[in-house]
């Protein structure tokens, strides 16, 4: 029931907003739909906590601890983002950067995007997972190009082609998976792609095929995660799209992609009994961290900067999942949570800052602290959090990942630390003048909606100081489910 609502409300929202998306109350409707989704997600989570894993719709969908918390997170960030986008998009409308019909497109696609992500998270069918991922790409492409500027078009095009091609590889991987599964589960076709069934028989799946399948799946979904060197679409898409979209892309879509990768990894590892998948993940992770750290160094556009920081953090998470084992998985899940909260908060603040300064170039954004203390503090706090300064949650997760790496993969630790150091210098050195420098900006017609920012940061802070036991159990269950190591 809750589940039905969970998927129905964004879809319904998409349809409704497709009609009324240009009305004055469209933004409110958008928020309302997101709220409904969030409530549904909470109810669902409550049920999962109560009853444990559950399967619905002829096993086509299932909820286990792993995706349950991602569903809640997605719904929550979706809600806050919709709240944030209300004043933000209004300002954009007044600046004439978007027209009413485009606003309709925006609202409708926003809900559609949420729906596709929720489907991708909850589906039990690897094929459906692929379909949903592709759909997520398609629904965001037009959002990225919402402004129809040359840059946004270019970004959108690259996003489309690179992710499309990547996803195509994933499809081939899925085919191979099916090919291997059908030997065991029979060609009935229905069950042969259900993750639960595959997971049950993963020991018997043909290793040779699965290793190939994993490569295709990794390249495919990895492209969407933004793993270097498949990441090239990411900074452009983040920088050129409207800020709310950057926030959900970076905060949610990447998580979903990682989720897909991890699901595949679980299967393949079960069949291969070899370190190969873990090694690949760790390699990609490290490469992404290092490359992103150095690219951070040259950024001038604030949203590009934080896009690269997203790549860096995805690298960290991937590396952690690659290490596997209860602690690393736990840390990775925690990091996924805090990263998506923090990063979306940062994008909110940065979006307002850019609106104030009328430019996304960091040298044009100065002295936020005097211009609008709330934005300034939001940006500063967010940056400090994302840099992994205690007492924020990112510190907790990074601390765990690093300490585990010291024990499991000592060779990797210095690389990680060096990259983190470079990233620290880069981000801190750029954010600090933006917040505290001499200012030159103009007033904002609307009071910024910074409730989301501080809500997110507050949660991150709490997670840094204290992870409530049930949440910890929950993570732990998910971590056990992922296993590895």
């Amino acid at each position, binding site marked *: 029931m809750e589940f039905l609502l969970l998927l129905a409300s964004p879809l319904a929202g998409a349809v409704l907003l497709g009609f009324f998306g240009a009305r004055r109350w469209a933004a409110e409707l958008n928020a309302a739909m997101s709220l409904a989704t969030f409530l549904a997600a909470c109810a669902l989570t409550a049920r999962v906590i109560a009853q444990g894993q559950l399967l619905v719709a002829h096993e086509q969908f299932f909820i286990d601890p792993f995706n349950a918390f991602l569903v809640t997170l997605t719904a929550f960030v979706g809600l806050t983002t919709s709240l944030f986008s209300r004043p933000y998009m209004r300002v954009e409308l007044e600046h004439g950067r978007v027209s009413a019909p485009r606003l309709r497109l925006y609202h409708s696609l926003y809900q559609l995007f949420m729906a596709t992500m929720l489907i991708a998270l909850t589906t039990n*069918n690897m*094929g*459906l997972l*692929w*379909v949903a991922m*592709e*759909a997520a790409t*398609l629904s965001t*492409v*037009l959002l990225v*190009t919402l402004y*129809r*500027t*040359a*840059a946004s*078009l*270019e*970004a*959108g*095009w*690259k996003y*489309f*082609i690179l992710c*499309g*091609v990547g996803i*195509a590889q994933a*499809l*081939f991987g*899925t*085919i*191979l998976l*099916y*090919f*291997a599964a*059908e*030997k065991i589960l029979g*060609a009935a*076709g*229905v069950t*042969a*792609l259900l993750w639960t069934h595959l997971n049950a028989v993963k020991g018997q799946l*043909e290793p*040779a*095929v699965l290793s*190939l399948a994993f490569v295709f799946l990794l390249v495919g979904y990895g492209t969407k995660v933004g793993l270097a060197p498949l990441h090239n679409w990411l*900074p*452009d898409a983040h*920088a*050129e799209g409207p800020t709310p979209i950057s926030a959900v892309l970076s905060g949610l879509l990447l998580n979903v992609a990682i989720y897909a990768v991890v699901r595949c990894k679980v299967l393949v590892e079960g069949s291969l009994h070899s370190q190969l998948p873990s090694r690949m993940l760790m390699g990609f992770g490290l490469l992404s961290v290092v490359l992103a750290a150095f690219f951070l*160094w*040259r*950024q*001038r556009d604030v949203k590009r900067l934080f896009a690269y920081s997203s790549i860096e953090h995805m690298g960290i998470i991937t590396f952690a999942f690659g290490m596997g084992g209860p602690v690393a998985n736990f840390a990775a899940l925690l990091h996924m949570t805090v990263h998506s909260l923090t990063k979306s908060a940062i994008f909110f603040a940065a979006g307002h800052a850019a609106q104030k300064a009328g430019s996304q170039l*960091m*040298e044009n954004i100065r002295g936020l602290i005097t211009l609008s203390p709330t934005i300034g503090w939001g940006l500063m706090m967010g940056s400090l959090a994302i840099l992994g300064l205690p007492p924020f949650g990112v510190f907790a997760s990074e601390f765990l990942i690093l300490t585990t790496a010291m024990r499991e993969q000592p060779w990797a630790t210095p690389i990680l630390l060096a990259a983190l150091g470079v990233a620290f*210098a*880069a981000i*801190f*050195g*750029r954010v600090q003048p933006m917040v505290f420098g001499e200012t030159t900006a103009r007033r904002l017609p609307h009071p910024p909606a910074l409730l989301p920012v501080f809500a997110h940061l507050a949660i991150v802070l709490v997670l840094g100081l204290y992870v409530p036991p049930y949440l910890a159990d929950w993570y732990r269950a998910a971590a056990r489910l992922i296993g590895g190591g």
Partner: protein
Amino acid sequence: MAGVPVVLQLLNLCAALLLLLSFAMLTQRRIVNLVNLLAVQGGVLLVATLLLAWRTGQHHLYVSAALTLALKVVLLPWILHRLIRRLGVEWDTEPLLNIAGTMLVGVLVVVFAFGLAQPISALASTATRNSIGIAVAVVLLSFVTMITRRKAMSQVVGFLSMENGLFFGAMSATYGMPMIIEFGVALDVLVAVLVLGIFFFQIREQFDSLDLHHLESLKESSSLEAARPLEEDS
């Protein structure tokens, strides 16, 4: 191939044709012809699907055949042709970096693909196991096509032929995917093409051309004068 049933011979023929078509695409200069080649590819795919369906008597293959017909043979080429006409790029050609080299790369890719498909074919129980390698080759070749092309339109064609290759792979490896997936994929492809259509017009009205070198401004090497935080304080 004495002793092999005619149907299978025909199927292998289709496979060979597909490979040939991919090479043709790799070296085709004119956009319009590219689209036609894509349509032909879809046709061959259709034939192959029908043959397979007839041979194995799997009904869902008829459905996917219908899908192929509707989508890959009729709808997509029609949309693309319409786009071309609306955008007025019928006579658009593009310079290719030397064809011989490209061909060579293509051949290497095919070899690699066959090697790759070896273990799969060995395991496959389907009648069409040998054509898996060809499917992989088609996928990779269309990848190469996309890399070498400079026009948005031709990249899209490459993208679609990649989808074809995947479809063929699914068919020859496992007699096609479960039905929902087939539909889902088909839907995605359709939407993708529509989105692309919108795109083309946007790009055109921005740059009044579909040349991709307009879409190369977002890059890292541009921001050479990026701020150097450490030296500010020295």
